[in-house]
């Protein structure tokens, strides 16, 4: 039996609470619309480095996403960026910077920074937390990569050696070396990223780290830390640590769970709450609710209970293969899991995966196709429904991890989906 949750239709139901879903929901709620966000889990932001990468490789390394995008889109007509104008992209980036309170996001689409990953690869990113920007290898001369003994998800020696090699290969003189710190952890040998972030908010713990560092550092050395420098208080933790050691400090994203990703998720969830948006967690969209031939809402399942949520608009931001937004059966048949919209993937008969791990697997670009307003289209290229908009990784045509474009796509399409709805609302 399906019950109906509330008789009044919401203005919009947003499915998914990752970067795309949260962006759309916050924007709509702040504009005064009645928005309900329905999400199975807390979204992929838990994994994300939380850098807004717009385009890092296409396929050669990109120095300026803004300059590279027109040619890139021309070469990839079904890429999600085909629906994003440069102006809209810039607006979405500004919008984001204005919505994260914990710290500033810096940078823009005109130039990529080259920030080290936890294994020491310089990775192109456009807009990043201020705590990370100091890691741009082109502005570094001398850096100590600081590890924490009890943190198994960050290996400073490997990162430093790789960073040195990568910088040298790029013609840069960068001296990088590891420093392993052993601040007190109450005897625990295995401390996770989140737990470290909490500990860094304790001035005593921070003091111990600073003291250990001061003894180990050389002159002029900047310090790269795993991104665990506090959670809510990241800005003060970061500033005070720099003051205490008298050196610039920057954060390096770690393996999941990602503290910067959780900071970003927290910031957007908090904005949503303040704007009066409703949030239904632990529930999953399982099908469209069709009335009089129109899409009137979605069917939602929480546990064994199924309800119907009526809405004028549905924003589909359920993610791609990694989040369950797109599901693939043995044999290759694929479906979009919430509304059953048409999916574009490898042709039948075409292999879905190639034998080399780093090959470009045909399955890699699977997802929906959308028109310029982000309405999912069918094989004929026409929108399937007038009142469904797709945002984020559920849209196919991209290789977000290869291109380093994931959060850029999610932010800009989430922002634009809300824009389409707001336009319509007048």
């Amino acid at each position, binding site marked *: 039996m399906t019950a109906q949750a509330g008789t009044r239709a919401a203005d919009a139901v947003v499915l998914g609470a990752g970067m795309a879903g949260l962006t759309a929901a916050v924007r709509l709620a702040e504009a005064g619309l009645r928005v309900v966000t329905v999400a199975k889990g807390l979204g992929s932001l838990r994994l*994300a480095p939380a850098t807004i990468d717009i385009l890092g490789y296409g396929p050669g390394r990109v120095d300026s996403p803004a300059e590279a995008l027109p040619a890139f889109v021309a070469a990839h007509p079904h890429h999600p960026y085909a629906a994003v104008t440069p102006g809209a992209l810039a607006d979405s980036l500004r919008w984001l910077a204005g919505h994260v309170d914990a710290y500033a996001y810096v940078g823009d689409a005109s130039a990529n920074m080259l920030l080290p990953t936890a294994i020491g690869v*310089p990775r192109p990113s456009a807009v990043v937390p201020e705590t990370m920007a100091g890691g741009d290898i082109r502005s570094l001369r001398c850096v100590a990569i600081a590890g924490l003994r009890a943190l198994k998800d960050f290996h400073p020696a490997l990162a430093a050696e790789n960073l040195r090699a990568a910088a040298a290969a790029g013609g840069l003189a960068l001296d990088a070396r590891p420093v392993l710190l052993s601040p007190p952890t109450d005897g625990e040998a295995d401390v996770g990223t989140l737990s470290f972030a909490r500990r860094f908010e304790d001035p005593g713990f921070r003091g111990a780290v600073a003291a250990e560092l001061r003894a180990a550092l050389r002159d002029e050395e900047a310090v790269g830390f795993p991104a665990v420098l506090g959670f809510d208080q990241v800005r003060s933790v970061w500033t005070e640590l720099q003051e205490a050691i008298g050196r610039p400090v920057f954060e390096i994203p770690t393996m*999941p769970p990602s503290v910067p990703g959780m900071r970003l998720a927290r910031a957007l969830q908090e904005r949503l709450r303040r704007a009066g948006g409703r949030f239904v967690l632990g529930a999953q969209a399982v099908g469209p609710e069709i009335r009089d031939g129109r899409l009137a809402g979605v069917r939602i399942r929480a546990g064994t209970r199924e309800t119907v949520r009526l809405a004028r608009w549905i924003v589909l931001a359920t993610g791609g293969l*990694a989040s369950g937004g797109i599901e693939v059966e043995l044999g290759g048949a694929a479906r979009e899991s919430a509304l059953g919209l048409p999916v574009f993937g490898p042709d039948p008969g075409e292999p879905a995966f190639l034998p080399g791990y780093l090959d470009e697997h045909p399955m890699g670009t699977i997802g929906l196709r959308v028109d310029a307003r982000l309405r999912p289209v069918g094989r004929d290229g026409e929108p399937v429904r007038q009142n469904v908009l797709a945002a984020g990784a559920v849209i196919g045509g991209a290789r977000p*991890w290869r291109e380093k474009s994931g959060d850029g796509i999610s932010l800009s399409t989430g922002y634009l989906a809300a824009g389409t709805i707001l336009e319509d609302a007048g």
Partner: protein
Amino acid sequence: MTSAAISSASAAGQPAPAGRADGRIDCDVLVIGGGSTGAGVARDAAMRGFSTVLVERADMATGTTGRFHGLLHSGGRYVVKDPKAAQECIGENIILRRIADDCIEDTGGLFVTTPIDDPGYADRFIQGCKATGIEVQEIGVAEALRREPRLNPRISRALVVPDATVDAWKMVWSCVRSATQYGATVLPYHEVISVIRDGSRVAGAVVRGPGGELRIRAEVVINAAGAWAGKIAAMAGCEVKVRPGKGIMVATNHRLVNTVVNRCEMPADGDILVPIRTVSVIGTTDTLVDDPDDWPISRQEIDEMLTAGENLVPGFRESRTLRVWGGVRPLFQDEGPAETRDVTRAHAVLDHRARDGVEAFLTITGGKFCTYRLMAQDAVDAACGVLGTSRPCRTADEPLPDSGEQKFYRIGSRLAGRERTLHDEQLICECELVRRGALEEAIARRGAASLDDIRRALRLGMGPCQGGFCTYRATGILHQATNLSAAEANRALLEFLQERWKGLHPLLHGDQLRQAWLDDWIFQGVLDVEHLPLAEQERARV
């Protein structure tokens, strides 16, 4: 690869192989092949006081032995069709339980008559068990379902036999440890490229290893190269027909059953479900292939395995499939049946003097994992004959290192160990409960630069996430614990990802696809491993 030789000064005062510095080794017995058979032969020969060298082209147990179904047969499978093989199985089953308990999980086995099976087979089965000395007990269907609740409720009969499961890597490495304690030299990553002939005699082999070529001279050479035995024999100018019989297996991410479950029927495809540590493995198939190193796995074969699993455990198809892999059986066949299932599973020792007029050269082939000890005994007995001495075999009595106390491992063993060290040690692989200390110890012991070698020692990355979280950690630890350069560590990481991908991509769908994509997000999105700096020659290799 930088795996060094594994050898030790002869603690027991046995003659150690001489030479090395000048690219030469002299020994009594040279064993070719580092699977269960070769490892068993090396141990047996060393225990009998022969100076012994074993060479293996890759890591130990990377041939068929590392790719099998994991079953310590009771012999039940062969009682009707191949009683000789059945008898060997039960004899060895009893011995291995005594000398190798640390490598065995005593799961017990069930033969069940499913709706597609001949109901009359069970009676022939019971008769066969009695004739070959296999303990068998019929239990009621309700009792079988109580023991194994996921089992197909439509089974009509259930028979209990002493099947068990066995950790091949543990067994092989235990043999290696024991062999080296008795003075043997074990050389993984040393490939035989030619066999040395002295007139009508085989006098050793030339091997290529990490440090270049080595000439190993021996009084007798034992070819234990499994499905590759024909190729080695050809190098010595002999013809041995070993037909590679390919079998595939599919692992699911749960332990669906706790007992080995067999269909009570003539051996067929996909008729055994084996619980191995945290997973269950359905298998297997049997198709002739031409080249033991090159054969495909088709989607249809995978599909057949899933259907077969469904017959034993309804809902099997919906469970999450982790990976698929295959191995090639060394089926010895001089002349005779073309269907591989009709070839006997018993083994044969070939003395090439009688057969081909080539002296001091033996081939041990056929057989099964669970009869490796007996195969080794027969081979070394034959070697004694060649060497003109008679020294008794002691492997049936002397336990392997860490065994001999009737302490079979259990599924909870690692968890229990983990709980004791919760606060002192990091957990590197959460799925398989691999502790940092165990990882560092394995790296030190192996001197290995390959994460895949470590995987086989510790089951690193073999659980549901298939290496998503532990690979980076293990690479960092490997880099620090050894004097590997970052470029070499990077290559180890990329090779490991490639190795994992090999078993994943043929059946990637559903939840496991989702997991694989999350893993890619970590590797490509977060770490950017595509742009890891590699030395030029390493980039070419990956």
